[in-house]
């Protein structure tokens, strides 16, 4: 059985609202994926099916860039597996929240797990609220936005013709930056964060593509933080 307050209607509502607040940050990426999908020749139905079931923009973009005729089943699957590896530690880090529900609510909510929803849910967890409904609401709100924007990008991409360097595409980076402020717990975060950024830059500089800069940076920073905390307690 669910814990009391483990998955509430109120939580879903607050999650949806949190997703709405970053609409501007979410929308450009959906547009780009919809436009790219149109360019490689996928139909609207295929585009929406892919976006609805995969719901992971970066991996979809990479898969679409290596699209061919017939469709690259193995290549696209591997691209999703490798690029979405970063979601593995996210699900693990959300365990204190996820442990409070089970069954379809648990495994269905995990199907909607994306970076921004994860970050918002961690901020909730740190504020002392452990409602899986919030994670579901945030993820579902982002999914709705994602589907709408992919459709708009596919249908009107040619008419919009936004250059890749248009400032509006900065919105998705800005959304992650703003959420990062919410994840800041104080001075103790400074060293792990600097190390994470430095290692990510070094790995990228060494010529490795996604997801390796993110994974190497994240584990270097988090590993250092855990080691330092362990020494302080000892």
């Amino acid at each position, binding site marked *: 059985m669910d814990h009391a307050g483990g998955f509430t209607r109120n939580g879903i509502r607050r999650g949806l609202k949190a997703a709405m607040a*970053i609409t501007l*940050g979410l929308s450009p990426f959906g547009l780009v994926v919809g436009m790219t999908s149109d360019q490689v020749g*996928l139909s609207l139905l*295929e585009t929406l*099916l*892919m976006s609805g*079931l*995969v719901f992971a923009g970066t991996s979809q973009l990479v898969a679409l860039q290596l699209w061919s005729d017939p*469709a*690259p*089943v193995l290549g696209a*699957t591997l*691209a*999703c*597996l490798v690029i*979405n590896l*970063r*979601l*593995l530690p*996210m*699900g*693990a*880090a959300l365990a204190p929240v996820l442990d409070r529900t089970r069954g379809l609510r648990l*495994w269905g909510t*995990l*199907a909607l797990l994306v*970076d921004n929803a*994860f*970050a918002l849910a961690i901020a909730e967890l740190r504020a002392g609220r452990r409602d899986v409904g919030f994670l579901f609401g945030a993820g579902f709100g982002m999914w709705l936005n994602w589907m709408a924007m992919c459709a708009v990008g596919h249908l009107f991409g040619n008419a919009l013709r936004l250059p890749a360097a248009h*400032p509006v595409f*900065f*919105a998705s*980076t*800005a959304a992650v*930056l*703003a*959420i*990062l*402020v919410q*994840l*800041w717990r104080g001075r103790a*975060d400074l060293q*792990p*964060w600097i190390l*994470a*950024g430095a*290692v*990510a*830059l070094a790995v*990228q500089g060494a010529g490795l593509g996604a997801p390796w*800069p*993110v994974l190497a*940076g*994240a584990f270097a*920073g*988090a590993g250092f*933080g*855990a*080691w330092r905390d*362990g020494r302080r307690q000892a």
Partner: protein
Amino acid sequence: MTLRWDVLAAIIGMALASYLCRAGGYAVLRVIRPPPFVQGMLQHLPGCIFVAFLAPALAAAGWPAMAAGAVVLLVQAALRRLALSILAGVAALWLLRLAGLG
């Protein structure tokens, strides 16, 4: 409205791979009780993941994007309104480009 079988197969493969990544980390954690060091890492991972994602992206985008990023951080730290911070960052970058910088 076409749906080709090879495209459908690719989509299903992509969806299964993505779900494995979403659910896998938590599924493993339910079975195996992680040692304290791993639990400590999980506390630090959220912030570190996003910093490691942002640093290369901002470095590649150049200094106008970094300046706009600083605007986002300042507005968010001061006002704690996500929508406003995102808007401020996009506006800052737009103004910098308009001024012929970057």
